[in-house]
């Protein structure tokens, strides 16, 4: 790691790849320790992944407190299932899958989805990026107003970059349904943004 920090190179891609490798090695070590019931190691994993998991839950639920509950439930489930994690997929993907299942399970269980749009408008601050010119803020808000099915597919596919196969697997739907929902989401977003005066 020290060598990486002092290396004089204008090609940062090598450095980034190396950093990623170090992080992954670190992650593997934490996972191994957490599997041996080390809660400190699991906390390290939590700190490494919580922001992305929370972002995913927030985009899927559109509700801050619901997203917080989902994150907590997802990490508790992850702790309980950790011994079953074999490393076939990236730890983050495994964690996201648990988070998506948690969101879907909670939505099925509760009827909060009915009130979601109103609640989201009241409490969920749209996550933005640093160079946001306002258009992303509009898009973020518009995503939050999409119907559940279209929103979930759009969040996983368009925002988090999961393939239709991965997204459909996570959501428990057919690949064709995922594609159709994405198409629907795009059309609805384009319509919404056009109405609001923002040309996508």
């Amino acid at each position, binding site marked *: 790691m020290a060598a990486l920090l002092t290396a004089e190179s204008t090609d940062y891609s090598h450095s980034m790849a190396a950093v990623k490798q170090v992080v992954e090695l670190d992650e593997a070590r934490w996972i191994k320790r957490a599997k041996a019931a080390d*809660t400190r190691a*699991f*906390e390290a994993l*939590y*700190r490494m992944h*919580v*922001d*992305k998991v*929370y*972002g*995913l839950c*927030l985009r899927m639920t559109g509700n*801050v407190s619901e*997203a*917080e509950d989902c*994150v*907590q439930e997802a*990490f*508790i489930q992850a*702790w*309980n299932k950790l011994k079953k994690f074999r490393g076939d997929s990236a730890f983050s993907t495994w964690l996201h899958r648990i988070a998506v299942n948690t969101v879907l399970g909670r939505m099925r269980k509760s009827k909060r989805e009915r009130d979601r749009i109103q609640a989201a408008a009241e409490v969920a601050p749209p*996550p*933005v*990026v640093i160079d946001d010119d306002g*258009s*992303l803020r509009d*898009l*973020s808000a518009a*995503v939050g107003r999409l119907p559940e099915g279209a929103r979930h597919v*759009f969040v996983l596919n*368009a*925002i*988090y*970059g999961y393939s239709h196969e991965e997204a459909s697997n996570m959501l428990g739907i057919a690949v064709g349904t995922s594609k159709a929902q994405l198409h629907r989401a*795009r*059309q609805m*977003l*384009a319509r919404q*943004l056009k109405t609001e005066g923002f*040309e*996508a």
Partner: protein
Amino acid sequence: MNTEADDKLMADAARLAKAVAPERDLWPAIEASINAPRERQPMPWYAQAAAVLLLVGGSSAVTYIVTKQETNVSPVATNGGLVLESASWGGEYEMSVDYKLARRGLREQLAEELERMLPEARVEVEQN
């Protein structure tokens, strides 16, 4: 929606923040939960089903064995084709004196009643 606009939409979507820091630290609640002593897990459905099957099967087997046991008690009465057999539930069952007396009384009463009946009626009763 044209392709260019669609591409821009997807490009913008990819730029949306993926990582969002929660407004509060969620770890303490998670830590409390995973450190809490585990509640006894409810028995899974298949274990419950197996337990029920075992219980029903075991009880049926015991009943079968007991009822199939050979009994030393011979038929207690034969009366015009009417055969009173020993109780089905136990080959070793010893009947009390009171029970035997009561049974003998009933048998005598039945015999008297049968004697008084018309032959057709008696046949019908015995058939029943």
